[in-house]
């Protein structure tokens, strides 16, 4: 099985099994709704500033990701299909398939959060520089997915998966979180596209470094 066809087949398998139960999608969507509702209760009728809103935006994305993204590997362990996957595909094929699947999940999650934010904070959450916002969401989702995929692979082998996942991911994600919060604030404040270029450089560097490192190390995690 070549690299690309193998990756494609694994993603199709993941999407099929996801659509059969819709476990991750439903859980993620409900988590987003719950978190945003809690924020609304907390803020009451206050008008939050753009930095507060962009911070809360990524807080919702972070905790939603932490509640759902470990499924990709944990479900394989629970169903006992890890061995089969190890037999049929090379570690790098598995890694890139899971990375792409998690990227799709994260990206759809950020879109859900964005739509929800634009409706409930219709006055405060106005994206003034769309190019910055789009770049941040795309690059941020990529970085998020690449860090959380390798951590999910590690956590799937441990006993206390649920609590361990955010604990392990947070120190790794802090750089990314600070940068995307910074860039989102710029998008809400309507700054020029060029002002966000340093942030984008960090996001691209983070994604490349994290994916490269994970690619090299994944084999050690995956093979028992």
């Amino acid at each position, binding site marked *: 099985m070549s690299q690309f066809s193998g990756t494609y087949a694994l993603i199709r398998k993941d999407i099929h099994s996801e659509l059969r139960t819709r476990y991750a999608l439903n859980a993620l969507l409900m988590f987003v709704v719950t978190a945003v509702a809690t924020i609304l209760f907390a803020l009451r009728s206050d008008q939050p500033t753009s930095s507060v809103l962009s911070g809360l935006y990524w807080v919702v994305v972070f905790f939603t990701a932490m509640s759902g993204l470990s499924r990709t590997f944990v479900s394989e362990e629970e169903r006992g299909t890890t061995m089969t996957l190890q037999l049929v595909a090379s570690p790098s094929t598995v890694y890139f398939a899971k990375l792409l699947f998690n990227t799709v999940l994260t990206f759809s999650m950020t879109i859900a959060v964005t739509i929800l934010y634009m409706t409930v904070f219709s006055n405060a959450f106005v994206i003034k520089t769309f190019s910055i916002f789009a770049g941040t969401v795309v690059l941020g989702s990529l970085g998020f997915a690449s*860090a959380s995929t*390798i*951590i999910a692979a*590690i956590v799937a*082998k*441990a*006993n*206390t998966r649920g609590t*361990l996942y955010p*604990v*392990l991911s*947070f*120190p*790794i994600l*802090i*750089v990314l979180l*600070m940068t995307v919060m*910074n860039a989102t604030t710029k998008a809400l404040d309507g700054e020029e596209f060029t002002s966000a270029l*340093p*942030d984008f450089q*960090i996001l691209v*560097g*983070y994604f490349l*470094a*994290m994916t490269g*490192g*994970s690619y090299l*190390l994944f084999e*050690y*995690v995956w093979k*028992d």
Partner: protein
Amino acid sequence: MKFAKYGSITLITFVLVAGIAIPLSPSPQNWLQFPVIPGLEEKARNILYHVPVAWTTVVAFLVSTYYGFRYLKTRDIDYDIKSVSAAGLGFLFCFLATVTGALWAKFNWGSFWNWDPRETSIFVLLLIYGAYFALRSALETEEKRATLSAVYSMIAGITVPFFIFVMPRIMTGLHPGAKEVADPAAISKAQAIADSAIAVGSKTFADSALATVAQMNVGSAVPVVQLKMSPNMLVIFLLGLLGFTLLFIWLLNVRVRLARMEYERSTHHE
């Protein structure tokens, strides 16, 4: 290891005594006087203890990651013993660096914690060590624990360059070497710290915080506190770095020997 043991004891004792006993002078005449650094004064002595401890934290992290890498290559459990012993010491030094830094920040900048880039980095390092030990305690078999914690420390190591090279350039900070042009938000924050110090009625805090504000307002070419060490201070500082590094080497050796004995006992009984 006798060398590291006695070397570290001698050097740290010397640095402790010399760092506290040598008097400050506005215009130092000889080697037995430190210059007065505006804005730091007597508090400058902390640099002889705080920086070596922070330095040792980073050394311990690198040593731990290196042994983790060696473990992945060779699958020799002895490397895992070395890696976890170094990480344990790193956690201890990281805690000490945080405490000494927070105390210094309280007396120099007015509050224990300001989320300056360096403070953020040391906080992240604390979190990484905490997560590392949480992960180890959640894994049962010896090999899994060794492999996965080695992979985790290397993944965490990937983010370290971002903290060292990238963050200080995009964020304003209070440590020397931070981004040089102070932005209005940081100035107003420093002003707020000064105001609150005045409100509390503490003159020394208010003075030092106002000095920070003044230095920030000077703007472009001036880092927050100009820190150019006099030669005698630099010698003591470097001896401190060496002393604490030797202390780390000695403690690591003791811990590794202890961990090896415990490992042998546990495998012997099975």
